[in-house]
C-alpha cells in the first residue's frame, strides 16, 4: 500500500523541516513540490528522505499539487494526501483521513475545520469569506461542504486518476469538487484541526485574493 503525502511549498524555509519531519515520523512517503521558492526551502527538503520536485518558476498551489499528484500517478501510488506546507495541518490526523479510503467507504476525504464542535479560531472576516466560498462552490458545482477551502484532503487511486487541476492558483478547492461531481466520486468529511499561527496567517491567503479566485473560476473554466 503506497501512501504519498504531497506537500506543496513556496518560500517556507522557516517551517518546512518541521512540517516534513512531522509527516515522516508516521512513516508516510513524502512528495515535496517546491513551487519555485527563492529561499532555502529546496535545500532543506533535499536533506530529508523525501521525493523533491522543483518547479523552475512559481506557478501556484494548484499547479504544485497537480505536479505532486502526477508524480504519485507515475509511482503507482494507492493513496495521496494533500498537506499544506505552512504547518497549519496536523500530521497525526492524516490517518483519520485515510481510514475511510482504506476501508473502501469513499474515494475522497475532505478535512473540515468546522466539524469538530470546537469554535474555530478564525476572525470574523475570514469566516465570512469561507462561508461565501462554500456557497459559491455550491452554486458552481452543486456540492455543499462544511469547509470547502480546506487544503487537507486524501484521495484513493480512483480519485487520484480522476482529479486533474488545470488552474494553477488557489481555485483548486472548487476544481476538486467539480471533479467529484463529474466522476461521481464518493466523498466524506472528517473533522480536522487548523492551526492559525502567526506564520500561517501571514502566509495564508489575503482576503482580496478570494476575489481573484472567484474571477478565475468564472472566466477561466476550460
Amino acid at each position, binding site marked *: 500500500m503506497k501512501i504519498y503525502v504531497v506537500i506543496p511549498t513556496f518560500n517556507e524555509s522557516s517551517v518546512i523541516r518541521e512540517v516534513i519531519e512531522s509527516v515522516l515520523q508516521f512513516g508516510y512517503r513524502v512528495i515535496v513540490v517546491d513551487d519555485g521558492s527563492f529561499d532555502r526551502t529546496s535545500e532543506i527538503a533535499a536533506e530529508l528522505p523525501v*521525493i523533491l520536485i522543483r518547479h*523552475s*518558476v512559481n506557478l501556484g498551489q494548484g*499547479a504544485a499539487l497537480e505536479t505532486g499528484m*502526477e*508524480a504519485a500517478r507515475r509511482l503507482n501510488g494507492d493513496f495521496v494526501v494533500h498537506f499544506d506546507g505552512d504547518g497549519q495541518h496536523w500530521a497525526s490526523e492524516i490517518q483519520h483521513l485515510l481510514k475511510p479510503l482504506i476501508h473502501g467507504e469513499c474515494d475522497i476525504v475532505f478535512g473540515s475545520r468546522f466539524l469538530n464542535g470546537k469554535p474555530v479560531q478564525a476572525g470574523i472576516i475570514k469566516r465570512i469569506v469561507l462561508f461565501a466560498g462554500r456557497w459559491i462552490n455550491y452554486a458552481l458545482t452543486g456540492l455543499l461542504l462544511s469547509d470547502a477551502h480546506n487544503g487537507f484532503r486524501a484521495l484513493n487511486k480512483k480519485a487520484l486518476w480522476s482529479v486533474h487541476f488545470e488552474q494553477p492558483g488557489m481555485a483548486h478547492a472548487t476544481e476538486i469538487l467539480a471533479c467529484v461531481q463529474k466522476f461521481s466520486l464518493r466523498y466524506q468529511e472528517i473533522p480536522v484541526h487548523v492551526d492559525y499561527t502567526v506564520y500561517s496567517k501571514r502566509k495564508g491567503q489575503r482576503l482580496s485574493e478570494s476575489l481573484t479566485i472567484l474571477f478565475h473560476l468564472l472566466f477561466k473554466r476550460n
Partner: protein
Amino acid sequence: MKIIQIILLVALLLLFVGYLRRFRKPVIDKLLVSLLLLSGIVFVIYPELTNRLAHLLGIGRGADLIFYLAILIFGYIVLILYSKINKLENMLIELIRKQSLNSIDLQQQTDA
C-alpha cells in the same frame, strides 16, 4: 479635406500595414480586417454617412455609433487576447511540470 481626416487616414493605413507585416493570419481574417479598413476610410472621407447609419439604428450622432462599435470591437479583442494568454499559461505550466518531473529519477528517489 480637414487635417483630422488626413491624420485618421494615415493612422488607419499605418495600422493596416503593421497588421499585414506582423501577423500571418488566415485569409478570412485578412478579408475582415481589410473590410474594416475600407469602411474606416469611407467613414473618414464621408463622415455624414455615419450620421445616416446612426439614425437608421436609432442613435443620434454618427460619432456615437463609431464609439459604440469601437467598444464592442475592443471587448472582442480583449477576449481573444485573454484566451490566448490563458492558453500560453497552460502550455507553460505543462512544460514546467514535465521538465520538473523528468529531471529527477522518481523511482530512484523512492528507493533511497
